[in-house]
């Protein structure tokens, strides 16, 4: 399984000279399965450049964690969606009132976007509830996690490796002594013993105190979760748009220099992981 980070920024794209190293594009991670499955985790602005990387694939699956703009804004700029020769599947959280198609159509329709979702030539949209399904040789597990609105986290398993993806996650919300017991911790099952955990690290500890309930984690929260879940590697992700490369270098260095049971990898755009 190959994993590449195409968009690592959270909340809003933040292009500029101060965000070159970690990247200014919003959430998008490409996972290529053992049998060539092409799975994209979220469709933030980072998805725009992935199309060249999936050229030749007959099928592309896009797994949306939720429908905040920084996770779907790139959909309209992903050429394979407009190519009738590519079978595309968009998966995302179910709702009690509207289908995923209806909710995505709020963005993919005028006046917000010139093309309607229903005009895409070869796209199927799937509402997801917690549970598992297969994409080729990859087993996908989805589960709701703590974030405003209905939000999924994902785990992708092959015979040899597991990736957990929780880009927007606030498991510390309302917990008096974090982390709580594993069975009472949001996302725990998805993360457990993953080879790679890509997790929300939007805030510093002091920023988190000012933003409780906004749906994100601090570096400290993410490292505690990774430790508890026994993951092999933790990747920092969903960087705050206000954090410059210099800020992130400092924050990541603090984590790297501390002792952990896992390897810590700063989430820089273009980073590739080749998992067994």
């Amino acid at each position, binding site marked *: 399984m190959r994993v590449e980070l195409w968009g690592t920024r959270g909340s809003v794209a933040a292009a500029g000279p101060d965000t070159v190293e970690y990247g200014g594009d919003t959430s998008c991670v490409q996972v290529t399965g053992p049998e060539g499955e092409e799975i994209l985790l979220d469709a933030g602005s980072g998805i725009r450049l992935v199309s060249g990387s999936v050229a030749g694939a007959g099928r592309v699956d896009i797994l949306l964690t939720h429908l905040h703009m920084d996770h779907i804004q790139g959909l309209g700029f992903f050429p394979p969606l407009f190519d009738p020769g590519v079978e595309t599947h968009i998966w995302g*959280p*179910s*709702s*009690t009132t509207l289908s995923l198609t209806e909710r995505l159509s709020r963005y993919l329709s005028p006046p917000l976007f010139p093309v309607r979702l229903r005009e895409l030539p070869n796209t199927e949209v799937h*509402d997801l*509830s*917690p549970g598992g399904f297969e994409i080729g040789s990859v087993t996908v597990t989805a*589960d*709701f*996690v*703590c974030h405003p609105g*209905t939000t999924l986290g994902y785990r992708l398993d092959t015979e040899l490796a597991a990736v957990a993806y929780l880009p927007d996650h606030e498991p510390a*919300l*309302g*917990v*008096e002594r974090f982390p709580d*017991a*594993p*069975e*009472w*911790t*949001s996302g*725990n*099952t998805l993360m457990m013993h993953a080879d790679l955990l890509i997790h929300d690290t939007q805030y510093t500890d002091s920023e988190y105190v000012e933003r409780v309930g906004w749906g994100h984690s601090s570096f400290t929260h993410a490292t505690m979760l990774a430790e508890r879940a026994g993951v092999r590697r933790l990747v920092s992700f969903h960087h705050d748009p206000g954090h410059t490369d210099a800020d992130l270098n400092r924050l990541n260095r603090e984590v790297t220099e501390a002792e952990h049971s896992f390897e810590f990898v700063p989430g820089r755009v273009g980073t590739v992981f080749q998992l067994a």
Partner: protein
Amino acid sequence: MAQQPIELILLKQWAEHIAIPVWIMDADGNLVFYNEPAEAILGRRFDEAGEINAEELADRFVTTGLDGHPVPTKELPVVVALTEGHPAHRELRIQALDTGQSRQIEITAIPIRGQGGRDLGAVALFWESAQR
């Protein structure tokens, strides 16, 4: 132990922050949490009692109607919410675990249904009748 669904996790977090007695059942009828105000009525801290499985519940918590006669298990509000899938309300007496003192409570139980129609359990809010 398997992770609880996010709906129950958030429910527990809410219960930990309010002053109304709350207890939470999972979909199998196990008592998976009650909060501090509930501890004051039930007479034991949840951390000491731990999760109580469905089979043991009736033995651990002795309940009767206001007339002193036992309430059939299937008529208890939490059981109605779990098995019949609708809210239920009742006034009854429950024996505290520490002192054995019988307290008169009102209890309202509501089934918890998640996205996609998943039955996740039930939540019960209760209070001593005298405090109303």
